[in-house]
Structures are given as structure tokens and as C-alpha cells.
């Protein structure tokens, strides 16, 4: 456990040592800020809905770029060997790296609170959905981080890791919208599997254990998958 925390601290600090972290944050804030404020004054409604509606897509794009280096870089440079021959378990490594990327996503999200603050300044903001939205965003960020960690563990190439991560994240975000012409049962299942549905529920301010369970199981599933991949590497 201590080992996991040590790895977490190191990986988290790494995000702020390299310029990549800052670049990703800038891109994220530019994209979300642009899409939010260009439409904001057209609707003249004091809420953050357009920001949260777009978040599953922006996260699908940005989070794999945050997580791509976690394993792929270590496998590529060989430091993976050095890390695994230290007295750590696979779970320590996976947990440490996952926590670091999820925390970085939370940090990346923090400046967007300024959007909320500026909306509250010019109109009457209903804080309920906003808080729900941020809770949902953190959960979805964690789930996508777990996906990214998994994508990074299967390859030594960061680009491949990033693209695989994006494909899985986009899939989870979009595929309920692509199966509308299938029979009802399939639509129901795919709606349940889609990350966006659960995120929307929470961001409306409805906190249902089913949605929480969904994100928790995505995290568990992909972290477990990373562990299996590490085992197979031996």
C-alpha cells in the first residue's frame, strides 16, 4: 500500500515536471472554454449544461493523452524492468499509476470551476446540477483513466496506447447513439453500457447507486485487465 502511494506521488509529480502535462491542460481548457462560451450567450441560460454535455467527448480525447505514457514509456525505455524488480506488487504499480492520472484529471478539471463562477456572477446559477456534474466528471475521469492505464499497459508505443484508449473511450461514450436502429433490447443494454448515460444522470443532480456502481466497475475491470497484462508479460 505504501509502495502504491510512493508510486502515485512520483507519477503525479511527473505530470508537472514535463511540459506535456501543461500542454494537455491548456488544450483541455481551450476546447471546453471555447465550446462553452461561444454558445453560452446564445441560450442566455445560467447553467453549465453545454459544458457538461460535451465533457464525455473532450475527456475521450484528452484523458488517453494523459495516461498514454504511464506504462508504454516505461516498457519502451526499459525502466519497467527496474520498477518491477523493486519490492512492489503488480497491484501497487497499477493502483499508483491509476491514482496519479485520475488525480491529474481532477486537477485539470479544477480551473473550469471559474466557468461556474463567472456564470454565477452574471446570472442565478443553480448549484445542484453543477455539483452533480463535477461529481460525475470526476467519476467519468476516473473510469477513463483506468481505460487509459489499460491501453498503456498493452503496448510499448505511446501513440498506439493513446489511440487504443481513445477508441475505447469514444466507444463507451457514443455507441448507445449508434445502435438506435437495432431492436429494443440491444438499445437498452448498450444504453446501460454507455458511459455518457450514467454521466448525464449524475450531472442532472440525480445520484443513483447504479451509476456509481457502473463507474466503479469500469475502473475495476480495466485495472484488473492491466494486472492481467502485466502478469502475461512475465
Amino acid at each position, binding site marked *: 500500500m*505504501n*509502495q502504491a502511494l*510512493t*508510486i502515485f506521488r*512520483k507519477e503525479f509529480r*511527473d505530470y508537472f*515536471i*514535463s511540459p506535456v502535462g501543461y500542454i494537455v491542460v491548456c488544450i483541455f481548457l481551450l476546447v471546453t472554454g471555447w465550446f462553452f462560451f461561444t454558445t453560452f450567450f446564445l441560450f442566455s441560460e445560467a447553467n453549465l449544461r453545454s459544458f457538461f454535455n460535451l465533457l464525455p467527448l473532450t475527456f475521450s480525447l484528452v484523458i488517453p493523452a494523459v495516461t498514454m505514457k504511464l506504462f508504454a514509456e516505461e516498457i519502451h*525505455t*526499459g*525502466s*519497467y*524492468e*527496474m520498477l*518491477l*524488480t*523493486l*519490492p*512492489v*506488487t503488480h497491484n501497487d504499480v497499477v493502483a499508483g499509476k491509476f491514482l496519479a492520472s485520475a488525480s491529474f484529471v481532477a486537477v485539470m478539471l479544477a480551473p473550469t470551476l471559474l466557468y461556474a463562477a463567472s456564470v454565477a456572477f452574471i446570472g442565478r446559477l443553480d448549484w445542484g446540477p453543477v455539483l452533480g456534474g463535477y461529481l460525475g466528471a470526476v467519476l467519468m475521469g476516473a473510469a477513463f483513466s483506468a481505460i487509459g492505464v489499460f491501453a498503456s499497459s498493452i503496448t510499448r508505443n505511446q501513440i498506439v496506447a493513446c489511440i487504443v484508449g481513445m477508441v475505447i473511450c469514444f466507444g463507451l461514450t457514443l455507441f448507445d447513439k449508434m445502435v438506435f436502429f437495432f431492436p429494443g433490447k440491444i438499445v437498452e443494454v448498450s444504453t446501460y453500457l454507455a458511459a455518457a448515460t450514467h454521466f448525464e444522470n449524475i450531472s442532472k443532480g440525480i445520484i443513483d447507486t447504479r451509476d456509481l456502481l457502473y463507474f466503479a466497475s469500469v475502473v475495476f475491470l480495466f485495472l484488473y485487465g492491466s494486472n492481467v497484462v502485466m502478469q502475461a508479460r*512475465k
Partner: protein
Amino acid sequence: MIHVENLTRYYGDFCAVDNIDLDVRKGEITGLLGPNGAGKTTTLRMLTGYLAPTSGTISIKDYSIDDDLLEIKKLIGYLPESAPLYHNMLVYDYLDYIADIRGLSKGRKEERIQELADLCDLRAIMHRPIGELSKGLRQRVGLAHAMIEDPEILILDEPTSGLDPNQIAEIRDIIRHFGKEKTVILSTHILSEAEATCDRIVIIDKGRIVADGSTEALEQESTAQEKIITVALLKADFASASMRFRLLPGVTGIELVESADPEVLKLKISADGRDNLREMIYSCIKETDWVLLELAKETKSLENIFRELTKEG
């Protein structure tokens, strides 16, 4: 200390390590010697738990690698080939991080980092990023990394490859200093390296152990079987000399050696292990009017042994 039995590892269809048995005692510096691709790195990786054996058992102290991997990792300090460390970290931060992962207390950590800074001569580079260091410096940081917890066993994969002679000497000193009380296993494909550093040499070829013993034992064993004696003579010609020597018992071959001085006849006489061959050669020469300039027994160097054991086919 380390007990390995029937260790085998396949990569797909390729057998990298084939049924190796090995016992390493405490306080021994063991060198795994072999040509490239012989299975040295794979063996070391299995000892450190990085790779799982296809079959066979490894036990270190009383721990088995299948059940107590974490305990075994605590005993071992390992430096992989070419020291793959985190290039973006400062040397001090890196050692600090490794000490944290290994669970050293704060006081002990400071103490060890200071000790290793002296031992591996890192003081001047403590606050430089690892990625900016030269290969030799990085290797020293890697050694410090492996020794941070003062482990009982130190495993080094090609610790001196790609370094210049001065750097090699430095690394060797550090290893020998450490190996006085602790167990060290290192791999190398350079013979002089193994000869200079190791108490015991295990030669591996194509995944198998082909020789195992102390440096002296390996040399003696092979010289016992065959002897080569060089003779340099004045006033002699090859035809009559070889005719005389060929009559001596045990002589299996005579070879002419190029010499710088045309007056001097230089011969290499090979024979199967008779102890008094030089005496016989001397008395043989005494009967003629040749002048004896040189008479020497050539011991087979480790290099010859190595080549013989690992040559193709």
C-alpha cells in the same frame, strides 16, 4: 544462498535457458559468462522475478520465488543492462524515490544516500537529471540504486558494457568492495572482466551451463589435458628440429611460428599431458649444437577455454 534447479525458459518456441542447475553460496562473486544471446540476461531476469520460469524452481535463502516473490525482491538489488533509470529525475530524487519504495526510514535513507554518494562518487552529480549523464555516470547511479537498501544479494547485468577502461576499473572496485561480505552475481561477455572480478565463473552457451568453477580451476582443468610448449632456437632448421622432437613420447604436433629474427627458429610443440616434457625437450637439444633461447609452457588462457566451449557447431 541461491538454489536453482532445472530452470528452463522458452520464448515461444525458442529455448533461451535450458535446464540450468546452479548453487550460489554466500559471499561469492559469481560471473555468468557467455556469448551474446546465451541466456545470461534471461537467467538473471528469472532470478529477480521479472520473468517467470517456464519450468524449474528458484529458491533464495528459504524463500521460493513462486510464493514469496516480494520477500525475495527485498533481498535483491538488481541493475538491469544499460541501467534504464528515469531520465527526467534528478539523481538525488531518484535515489530518494527508490529508498521510499524499499521502505527505508527517513534517517536511514539519508544515511544510505550519503554513504552511496561517497562509494559511487556521486556527490558532484546529485542534482543533475539522469538523462543528461554520460553512460559511466549513469551506471554508477544504477549501482547506487541497486545497493540502496544494502541488499544481501546484488545482481548486475553487464555492469561494465560500453564503458571506457577508467570507468570499468571504477565499477569493478565498487563491485569488489561490495562483494567482500555480500553475494554478487554478474553477467558479462568479456573474459578479462570475469577473470578480474569474479571468484567463480559459470560459462553459459545456448542456454546451458558448459563450465563451472573458480577461475584457477577452469584454467588448470584444461591445461591438464593438453600442453603447448614454445621453443626458440638458434642455429637450427625446421626439418631436423621437427624430426627430433616428433620422436619424443607424447608429442602430438609441431608448428612453426613466425619470428621477427630470421636466424631464430620458433616452434610450438603440443603434447598430451606429460609432466616432464620440457625436460625431455631440453635434453634433446643438449645433444645438438643448437642454442636454446626460450623454452616456455603456455597455459591455456581463459579465453581459449571460452572459445572452445562456446564455438559454433
